[in-house]
């Protein structure tokens, strides 16, 4: 999601510098065309790899609202939540997705709508939802 050889040239504390490299070599048009409120639908073990947090910093900064995945790598799950980027693990929802379907996520009630289908997920504990709502751990810790 973010090329490893750039890790120590661009610090993860500089989101605006990360954005041009998001998904480079995978989907080159992503960084130019991503819009606030976009949703990403993806497959197994999303975010597999190292503990670098550049991807979640960049995706959150770009305004990606949610990721709906079949499964997720643990470190990415944690890092995403800590950047205010919620990940919803719902394999059946990903299977049901057809290109063109609208995806609506309701975090409060734990519902994902894919086209005309509805899927439920267990909402995260309150403290974690607060972290997401305050747009990440940095802000949350500042406030607590």
């Amino acid at each position, binding site marked *: 999601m973010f090329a490893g050889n750039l890790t120590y040239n661009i610090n993860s504390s500089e989101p605006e510098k990360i954005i041009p490299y998001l998904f480079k070599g995978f989907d*080159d048009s*992503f960084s130019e065309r991503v819009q606030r409120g976009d949703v990403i639908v993806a497959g197994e073990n999303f975010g597999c790899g190292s503990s670098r947090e550049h991807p979640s910093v960049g995706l959150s900064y770009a305004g990606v609202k949610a990721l709906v995945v079949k499964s997720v790598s643990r470190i990415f799950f944690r890092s995403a939540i800590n950047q205010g980027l919620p990940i919803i693990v719902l394999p059946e929802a990903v299977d049901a*997705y057809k290109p063109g379907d609208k995806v609506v996520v309701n975090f409060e009630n734990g519902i994902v709508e894919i086209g005309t289908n509805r899927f439920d997920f267990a909402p995260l504990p309150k403290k974690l939802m607060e972290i997401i709502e305050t747009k990440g751990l940095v802000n949350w810790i500042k406030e607590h």
Partner: protein
Amino acid sequence: MAGKTFVEKIFGAKKGSIVFKRPDIVLSHDNTASIRKTFAKMGGTKIKYNNQPLIVLDHNAPPTNAKLSNDYQAIRDFVKEQGIKRFHDVGSGICHQIMSYHAKPGMVIVGSDSHTCTAGAFNTFAAGIDRTETAGIWKNGETWFRVPETLKIVLHGALKKPVAAKDLALWIVGMIGSSGANYMSVEYHGEETLSVSERMTLANLASEMGAKNAVFPPDEVLEQYLGERIENGVWADEDAEYSRIIEINLGDIFPVVAAPHHVDNVKGISEVAGTKVQEALIGTCTNGRLDDLRIAAEILKGKKVPEGFQLLVAPASKKIYLQTAIEGTLETLMDAGGNILSPSCGPCLGTGQGIPADGYNVISTANRNFLGRMGNKNANIYLASPATVATSALYGEITDPREEKGKEVFPYKKEQSKTVEIKEGDDRRINGVWNYSI
């Protein structure tokens, strides 16, 4: 009522629950430079518990450009200013090896590195976290944990030398795939015949199975290694509930490699034997220990690698470097054509010295062979045990380390992680949704 797994005991909660806890050790390395900035952004000035951090400069040690050098110096200044005691400067070794001086049974350890799980060999809960979380712990002293489900791996018998713990670790990765233990805790049982160094190799590879952590019990082998009675060891109940149990006869394991470009692309040595290799790396947090270097030296003693062959050796710590220097192991490796690097991560992650040239096939004792991992997308990386790497270096081609070469084929069809490929002009954004599912 069912018994508890290791993680359910150490967190005092059932699987699936989320608990907040104060870790005993918080590891960071070169990334401390960046964590420091996030810490400041959080409004952090003084680390809440300055006995919590463990900071090791290893990923680019010694630094290869001015920016890195400046980062390193900034970290030294920060360590001084914060009064951090557990700091290991350039040349001390790889953070996961240095961890062996600090980890004690029953500890909760987190680190901003995906191979933090290596410390599970010391009967600790040890897991990787991201940089922001590390900054958060510096400030608050605690973080959240989701108590994971557990995969139990029961080992029977003993490995048939030169078959190594690395072969076993790759075997398991190949068997269950790179997400086979996704978000799980891996408990190793029946471990009596494995040394602590071998356990570190196994725990190290847990992140390549997608696991949160891997752990070994507080047994006599560990007690002997630590040189003291274990007081706070934690272990699972007999009747604990597991998501999956895997039984393995160690006598069945044969030498294997992880072929390019996935760690779970595991093949029997006979399936790749004869593949020409131009570079070999013996080292890293996976296999840069005393026993690993000695095994390699034994194979290379009095012999020479082919002309032009690049044999790199990076001892995992200064202690190991010194010991292998004194006892003559390094001399043997150098005589054979080896080039000894500073105790560090070396070229493993593509930043240190020893980046392979275009078209090179590299055979390495490391834990990752992703495309471009060693700093060149036009090179291929095979992962194997120190014995296989040393033998292959000697012949310039992948070679079975056993006297009697085997013909075995790796028995598991890989549940290999699918890679989504996007062709030019392929538009994946429709109605505000990016479709990366197929």
